[in-house]
């Protein structure tokens, strides 16, 4: 049987890289006594895959991993068991069984939502709601947002405008952009001392992956503000797969 685990990653865990988070979960599964399936051979490993690596420094409400299990309990019981062996800064937020023939979430990934916030002690014009609202509106009205993409061999200009699906300066506006319900008092596990600036939905996946830092850098350019990557906390809010032209949160995609 296959399951999909949604988890948050905050605080000091922002500094643990993707591969180490994978190792962390593999060891956690053993501590929790979760019977994962293993690959064959002399050095067997758990059949586990992550939907999308989160860059070092970013925090998240919605990381996903798919895992194959030999046996499993009710979803809530499984989530509780795993949470009992995790630290306070990596928490299981959801556990769902997915179809045996489910497409790997890594391959299904189409978009990610991010919240971009000013870190505690950092200040600039984006702290002003009215300013930010105007800048976002103007930014999105541009025909093209061209960025220089460097690969090993060449540099080329690409237009990222089509890959920015939406941007919003408030939770209410963000709520209108997305295809899922958010509670009236929805709160995210981003560091409480950060000041939220904007919400955005960006293309993600193996073909084209737009990083929130890149969008923020372009917005800064547009707004005439010097971009300093350390000023902002990038926080992932959700991951989506695409079906029939609609974005579907990974937590309900291909579930049993």
């Amino acid at each position, binding site marked *: 049987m296959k399951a999909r685990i949604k988890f948050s990653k905050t605080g000091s865990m922002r500094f643990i890289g993707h591969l*180490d988070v994978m190792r962390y979960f593999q*060891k956690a599964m*053993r501590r929790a006594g979760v019977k994962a399936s293993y690959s064959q051979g002399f050095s067997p490993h758990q059949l586990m895959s992550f939907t999308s690596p989160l860059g070092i420094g970013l925090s998240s409400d919605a990381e996903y991993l798919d895992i194959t299990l030999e046996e499993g309990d009710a979803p809530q019981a499984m989530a509780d068991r795993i949470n009992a062996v995790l630290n306070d800064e990596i928490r299981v937020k959801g556990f769902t069984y997915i179809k045996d023939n489910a497409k790997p979430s890594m391959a299904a990934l189409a978009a990610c939502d991010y919240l971009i916030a000013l870190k505690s002690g950092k200040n600039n014009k984006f702290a002003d709601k009215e300013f930010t609202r105007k800048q976002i509106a103007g930014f999105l009205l541009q025909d093209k947002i061209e960025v220089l993409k460097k690969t090993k061999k060449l540099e080329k200009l690409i237009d990222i405008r089509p890959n920015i699906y939406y941007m919003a300066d408030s939770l209410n506006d963000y709520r209108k952009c997305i295809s899922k319900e958010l509670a009236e008092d929805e709160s995210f596990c981003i560091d409480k001392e950060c000041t939220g600036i904007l919400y955005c939905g960006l293309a993600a996946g193996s073909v084209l992956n737009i990083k929130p830092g890149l969008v923020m850098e372009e917005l800064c350019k547009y707004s005439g503000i010097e971009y300093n990557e350390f000023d902002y906390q990038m926080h992932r809010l959700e991951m989506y797969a695409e079906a029939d032209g609609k974005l579907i949160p990974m937590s309900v995609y291909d579930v049993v």
Partner: protein
Amino acid sequence: MRKLALSDEILLSVDKPARYIGGETNMAIKDPADVDIRFCMCFPDVYEIGMSHLGIQIIYDMLNLRDDIYCERVYSPWTDLDRILRRENIPLFALESQQPVKDFDFLGITLQYEMCYTNILQVLDLSGITLIAADRKEGEPFVIGGGPCAYNPEPIADFFDMFYIGEGETVYYELMDKYKEWKASGQDRASFLKMAAKLPGIYVPQFYQPVYNNDGTLADFKPLVPEAPAKVIKQVECDLSETYYPRKPLVPYIKVTQDRVVLEIQRGCIRGCRFCQAGMLYRPIRPRGLSFLKKRAKEMLESTGHEEITLSSLSSSDYKELKELVYWLIDEFKDKGINISLPSLRIDEFALDVMSKVQDVRKSSLTFAPEAGTQRLRNVINKGLTEDDILNGAMEAFNGGWNRVKLYFMLGLPGETYNDIEGIAILSDKIARQYYTIPKEERNGRVNIVTSTSIFVPKPFTPFQWAAMDTKEQARQKRDFLLSKVREQLNARSIKYNCHDADVSELEGVFARGDRRLGNVIRQAYENGCIYDAWTEYFRPDVWNMAFKDNNLDMEFYLRRERAEDELFPWDFIDIGVTKEFLLEEYHNSKAEIVTPNCRSQCQGCGAAKFQCGVCIEKR
């Protein structure tokens, strides 16, 4: 949310920020305000190496069992963070509370190898602790050293308030109790040092005065206060089945050198190899009980989630119940996806059976450590491994499908001739020839032999503590000679030869048998930028040479002399049980090429029996 000592900017600009955030699985969490004693345990090397060390895990666990103590950890910041801490004036902090080390009661530093000495100064300096112990002020932590290099602490004696000579399990609680007593009394720093000096195994260097002869050798070494004993006796944990051993070891986030459960099956060794310091320091051999080991193995695998367990000891094959333990581990854990790794195993039928069960034969290799190339020289060093053992073991393995062999040797052993060096090439070749006696159609491709040499460094408390060490030039010549001999062999193309750097070995040799005068050299080298000397890319021989010159000390004095039999050594004030008489007799035996039987086959009266435990009281 845990508050971190370093800002996001710093953490995001250094390599592997996980080295500095703590918070690992099974980390001890306490409120520093709730305890009487804050103890910071330090391994003066990078996190990945320090976290792999079993000794710290044992003491960390043991100290944290007490509610009145909070034991935390610190490692050497890597060079990138080192620069930032200096530039921004950020004090070095412990991983658990992320609070400055200088606010602790104790800083305990484990001394695993000589080449970490400048890193000790780095840790003290970055913490803001006065480098010279005698100059430390009230309120600064007491700096205590322990581990193998504490058995000749003199080169770093200036920097330590005290050393603990012995195994951590025995005296630390008592030392902590004395500390609380002292703290409550409101007396000065020196009074605590005097209280500590009276405890067994505690050495307080500032209470001793070395006196030198004109030729630089030690004339006298005397205690200055009545509290300091003339001889400091090594402390031994007699019953290793009824003692502290972690049930929940720390599990780092990043991959470290030893990323697995470590089960120490016994301490000490019966073999008596004459070059081996551990073999003498940890006498007598003390096995842990089988049921204790089984219980701990299970607990540690469950509490860590590690996918591998390794058995640790100086010579696993000498653990009497090894078969039972290993087959139990395989039965219990193999189908749960847990790997079992078995270092330091004598290659025999049992070893090959186990290896074929736990490893991929095509990918794994056999390891032999003949240490010397000829039987004559192996007799000199008392390495009881014969050519037949090696060739028969290899042959059995080849028949079982293995085709990779690793061989470890030393260059520069006392009494070595060029004939012995050539013997390394010949032995490597003989193993290859052995392989090719298998009919071609039954072979598993070509044989692959990796022959490595390290440079012999004479160590205190070994029969070779009197011996001279090779010069760099001699070492280079020997290496080149061996390389040319390897190339002459019939199967030269199947043999790969690796060798060790001679510069670092010389410095290691100086510190291993050095005296207190070297403190100034180490300090000067540190102040001129030396840290991470064990890392070839950071080792700066020019700075070291200058430091020796400026302090009027000559490396030759420490390295090249064969010491007189009656010379007083800087470490002679330490009593490890094994006597100087026994070591000298063994030195004579080595010159006469006489093999000494191991402890279990015949007691040699080395002196370790005074501890009344382990093999010394086994029924024969």
